[in-house]
C-alpha cells in the first residue's frame, strides 16, 4: 500500500492544473455517477478553493407544490362550505357543559392512564420474575383483559351489582367479616369507567413495559446486583429509566388512544366530552358542528400530548446520545439569529417531511 500512496501524491504534485480542469467537467456530464467514475483514476488534487454547489432536488419541489395545493383545497372547502356551521362550533366550543365534559375526559384519562401504567409496571415485573406463580398470574391477566372487548368489560363492571349483590371484606371461606358494601352503591358510573379503562390499560401497558425492560442490556442489572443495590431500586432507578426509551413512543400511542378511548364510556351514560356532545346534538339537531367541537378538543389534547412526548423522550435520551439534537425552539432561534435562508439542515428536514406528512 505505501508505494501506491506515494505515486499518487507525486502525480498530484506534478499535474495539479490538468486535474483541476478535468474533474468538474466529469461531474457536469453525469452528476449521479460522477463520484464512482471519478474515483479510480483520482489523484488527490486540492479542492480547497472550489465553490460548493448544493445538490438540487427537483422532485422534492414538485412534491411540495402538490401537497400545498391539496392542503389549500381542503382548507378552502372547510371554510367555504356553510354546512360546517362554524358559527355553531364557535358558540359551543367553550360552553360550560362542553368544558365540564372535557374535564371529565381528562380526569378519566389521567386516573386510568396512571393507574393503568402503574399496574402494568407491576404486572411486567411479575411476568419477568422467576416465580412461576407470579408470571402465570400476570400472563393470565393480560390474556383475559386483552381478549375481551372493552365495551363488554365496562358493562360487566357496571352490572357487577347484578352478579354480586354485596362485596364483603374478610377472611375467605370463614364468616369473619371486616366490612360489607352494597355493590350498586360502590360501583358508580365513574368507578365502573375507571375500573374498566384501568384494567384494560394495565394489560396492554404490561406488555409494552415488559418489552422495554427486555431491551435493557443484562450487564446493567448484573452491575447493579454486584454493587448490592436492592431489587426494587434496581428496577426503578437502573432498568426502568433505560427501558423508557423503548417504552415511551408506544406508551404515548396508548395514552393518545386512551384519550379518545374514554369516549366509549358514553355507554354508561357518563358525561364525558363525547356523551355531552351527543346529549347536545340530540336536543339541537346540529350533529356535524357538535362532532366538530369534540373533534377539535381531541385534536388539542393530542397535540399537547405530542409536544409533551417530544420533550419527555428527549429527557430520557440523556446519556443514550452523545449530544442531544436541538429542540425545534432552539433550531428556530438559531435560524432567526443567523438569518441564513438556505440553512441546509432546516430546509432539508422541512422538505423531507413535507411530501410524507399527513397534512
Amino acid at each position, binding site marked *: 500500500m505505501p508505494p501506491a500512496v506515494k505515486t499518487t501524491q507525486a502525480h498530484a504534485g506534478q499535474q495539479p492544473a490538468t486535474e483541476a480542469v478535468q474533474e468538474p467537467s466529469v461531474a457536469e456530464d453525469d452528476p449521479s455517477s460522477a463520484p464512482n467514475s471519478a474515483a479510480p483514476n483520482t489523484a488527490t488534487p486540492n479542492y480547497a478553493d472550489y465553490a460548493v454547489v448544493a445538490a438540487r432536488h427537483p422532485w422534492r419541489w414538485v412534491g411540495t407544490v402538490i401537497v400545498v395545493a391539496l392542503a389549500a383545497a381542503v382548507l378552502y372547502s372547510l371554510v367555504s362550505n356553510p354546512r360546517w356551521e362554524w358559527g355553531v362550533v364557535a358558540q359551543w366550543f367553550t360552553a360550560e357543559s362542553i368544558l365540564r365534559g372535557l374535564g371529565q375526559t381528562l380526569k378519566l384519562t389521567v386516573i386510568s392512564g396512571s393507574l393503568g401504567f402503574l399496574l402494568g409496571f407491576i404486572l411486567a415485573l411479575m411476568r419477568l420474575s422467576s416465580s412461576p406463580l407470579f408470571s402465570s398470574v400476570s400472563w393470565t391477566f393480560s390474556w383475559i383483559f386483552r381478549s375481551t372487548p372493552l365495551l363488554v368489560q365496562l358493562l360487566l363492571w357496571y352490572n357487577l351489582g347484578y352478579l354480586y349483590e354485596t362485596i364483603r371484606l374478610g377472611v375467605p371461606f370463614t364468616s369473619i367479616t371486616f366490612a360489607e358494601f352494597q355493590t350498586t352503591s360502590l360501583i358508580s358510573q365513574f368507578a365502573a369507567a375507571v375500573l374498566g379503562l384501568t384494567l384494560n390499560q394495565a394489560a396492554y401497558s404490561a406488555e409494552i413495559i415488559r418489552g422495554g425492560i427486555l431491551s435493557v442490556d443484562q450487564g446493567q442489572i*448484573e452491575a447493579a446486583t454486584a*454493587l448490592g443495590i436492592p431489587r426494587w431500586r434496581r428496577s426503578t432507578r437502573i432498568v426502568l*429509566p433505560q427501558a423508557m426509551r423503548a417504552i415511551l413512543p408506544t406508551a404515548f400511542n396508548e395514552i393518545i388512544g386512551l384519550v379518545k378511548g374514554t369516549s366509549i364510556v358514553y355507554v354508561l351514560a357518563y358525561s364525558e366530552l363525547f356523551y355531552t356532545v351527543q346529549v347536545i346534538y340530540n336536543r339541537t339537531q346540529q350533529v356535524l358542528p357538535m362532532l366538530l367541537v369534540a373533534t377539535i378538543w381531541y385534536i388539542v389534547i393530542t397535540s399537547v400530548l405530542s409536544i409533551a412526548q417530544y420533550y419527555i423522550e428527549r429527557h430520557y435520551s440523556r446519556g443514550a446520545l452523545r449530544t442531544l439534537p436541538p429542540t425545534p425552539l432552539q433550531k428556530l432561534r438559531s435560524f432567526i439569529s443567523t438569518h441564513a435562508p438556505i440553512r441546509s439542515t432546516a430546509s432539508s428536514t422541512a422538505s423531507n417531511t413535507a411530501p410524507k406528512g399527513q397534512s
Partner: protein
Amino acid sequence: MSLAMNEVTTRGAIAVRSVDKSYGTTQVLHEVDLDVAAGEVLVVIGPSGSGKSTLLRTINHLEKVDRGTISLDGELIGYKVRNGKLHERRESEILAQRTDVGMVFQNFNLFGHLTALQNIIEAPIHAKGVAKATAVARAKQLLARVGLADKADAYPRQLSGGQQQRVAIARALALDPKVVLFDEPTSALDPELVTEVLEVIKDLAKSGTTLIIVTHEIGFARDVADRIVFMDGGRVVEEGTPAEILGNPRNERTKSFLSKVIEPAFNI
C-alpha cells in the same frame, strides 16, 4: 494519581473450598480450592471457557455454587451456619455481603443514563445508606484518584473506553470493598487505552486491598501479581509465584497455554 495510601489492612481473605458449579449438564467448576490472603494480588489466567469468569461470579454470589463453600474473612458467602446446617441468607444480607466485594466487568457496564458521578454514588447511598453529601465528596476524591476529576458530569457514552473503565473502577471502590474482582478489565479496550487502566490497577495493588484479576495481559500479570493461578477445564491446574508459573511452568497444559500467549509478544 497514586492510589498507594497508608491504608494497608489485613481484611479481605478469601477461602474457596471444593466448589462445584454446573450449567445444566456442563460442569464449569470442578472441586475448585483457592486461598487468597488479605491484601494479596492474585492473577487468574487460563484459556477461554476455563471457568475464570464463573469463579469470580460465585465469589460475588452472582451465581450460586452447587457444592462447596466460599468465605470472606471467615464469613460464608450466601450462607449462615446454624445448628450444624447451612441456611441460605436473606436477600438483604446477601446484598450487604456484596458491598464488601467490588466487581469490574469486561464491558464496564456503567449505567448509561447516569453521569460518572451518579454512577459512583448510587451504590454507597442506596446499598450502604451513606449520606449523599459524604458519597459525593468521596466520589469526587475517587474520580481524582483515577485521573478523571474533570469528567464528573460526563455520561458514559461521552467517555473513551479507558475512561469508562476507570470510572467503573472508581464505582467499585466507592463501596470500600475488602476485595475487588476484575474480569478481563482491558479486553474490550484499544491497545493504546490498556495502559491507563492497568496503571490504575497497579496503584490499587499497592493499597492493600485484596485483588483477584482475570487477565490475558501476561506482562501485566508478571508485574502486579503476588501469585498466579492457571485454570483449565474448570480446575485449578497450577499455582505459584509469577516467576514459577511464567518462567518455569511444570504442568503441560500451562506450558502449552503460555507458549500460545507469550510467544507472539517476543516476536514484536
